[in-house]
């Protein structure tokens, strides 16, 4: 049993390791703030549908500077280890902006399986739970399952170290209220 369990764990870790991206330098158009070890880049985009020369509809992502209520924004956070030592216990937190509502099931990560766990908060980032366990109490005292718009913060916990010179990507989508 012990051997089997270990054997099962190895491919998952390999999968996680395969998800590291090579560095391609900073994304254009986004201002950057560096720490000593990790460079964290937030990218805000929206999707537009264009018709190409063949008459097909193609979805293209463009940086977003203006938006309307109801527009869906894609927030991507790239974390790059620019130090000479692996970074462990990496935890990424992003508050959902107050005028936006999280889009259900929209989180993404370049890491998979136990290499990343995603938690959600409905109390301003004090507590994080898996999405299905979130509950809220309304003003009448009634307890109900949280809806996507109740979510205030999203957190990604990396279960693996971020190696030197590698980067990883997490993110989610949200609607302008």
């Amino acid at each position, binding site marked *: 049993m012990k051997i089997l369990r270990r054997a099962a764990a190895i491919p998952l870790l390999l999968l996680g390791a395969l998800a590291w991206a090579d560095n391609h330098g900073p994304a254009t158009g*986004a201002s950057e703030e560096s720490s000593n070890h990790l460079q964290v880049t937030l990218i805000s985009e929206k999707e537009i549908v264009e018709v190409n020369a063949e008459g097909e509809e193609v979805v293209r992502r463009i940086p977003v500077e203006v938006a309307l209520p109801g527009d869906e924004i894609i927030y991507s956070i790239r974390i790059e280890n620019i130090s000479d030592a692996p970074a462990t216990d990496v935890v990424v937190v992003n508050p959902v902006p107050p005028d936006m509502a999280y889009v259900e099931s929209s989180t993404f990560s370049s890491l998979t399986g136990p290499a990343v766990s995603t938690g959600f908060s409905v109390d301003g980032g004090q507590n994080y739970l898996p999405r299905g366990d979130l509950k809220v109490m309304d003003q009448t005292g009634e*307890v109900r399952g949280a809806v996507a718009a109740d979510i205030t913060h999203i957190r990604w916990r990396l*279960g693996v170290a971020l190696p030197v010179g590698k980067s990883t990507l997490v993110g989610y989508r949200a609607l302008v209220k």
Partner: protein
Amino acid sequence: MSNNLFQQCAKTNPVIRALILFLAILGSTSAMALTAPGQPITNQAAVSYSVGGTPFNASSNSTSLTVQELVDIEVTWLDSANVAVSPGSSNQVLTFQVTNIGNGTETFALSADSTLSGDDFDPVLQSIYLETDGVPGFSGGDTLYVSNSNDPVLASETSVIVYVLNNIPGGATNAQTGDSALTATSTNVTGAPGTVNAGDGDVGTDAIVGASGGAASFIGTYVVSDVSLSFVKSVLSVVDPFGGSEPVPGAVITYRIQVSVAAGAGTATAVTVTDPIPVNTTYKTASLYLNTSLLSDSAGNDAGEHDTGLNRIVVRLGDLTLASAVQTIEFAVTIN
């Protein structure tokens, strides 16, 4: 690394999850307001991590986008059913609601069209009124709408009640329908969704057309609800003073009048039956019945009386529809 994984598993273990289950108290359950034009939406991510066992924090760059003005409108017809009208009636009212479902303040022009196809008759458009007197329903205190003069100005997610008044043609017949549509159009920008009027939104933002195209319509419907009443008068009995049934002087004739709605979907309101006492007869006191209940001969205390001034019987039946039971009036006279 394996230690991290172990912690991760512990954190997602259902038992431990249950222990740390918590509740957030929502500040408000009211409807989410649309974000106002000009509002910036900024975002910044935070990262914590360890290098060589020492914890560190890092922040991302901050991104910002600015919300523009969405020009969007909705028109709904508020009458719960087709509005019942009579042929030839004037200024019949359809009630609509115009709502600004955009996020800015916009001015909307109103128009109505009563010459639509697909109905049985065309109502004749008279006027459009804005609900302004605070009294629900159209009334004289409401304000006549004049295009380009008092176009409603609506803040985001507010609405105005609009009345469309039409005359009903005299030739319309029972159960026929006639449609009239109210259209509200943004005076700022219309067009395919996404059309931009640069810089003409609130606080200098772009005004951008939403799904409605910047204009919306809704059709309201009249239905002719004519009613035809049936009156059937009969002689129920003749009793002469000699025990026979000859209409001789001194004989008592009992009349029966039966009233019902014979046809039509409408309501006959305040139906009143009057029947003169025949010449050469005298009303027999205490002989007036409505649906087997005796009515007093004097006025003012029940549904009917013997009107001595005009020498007739009067019975008030109230409102009658096709569903109402047949109303039976009986009274007697004596041959002079």
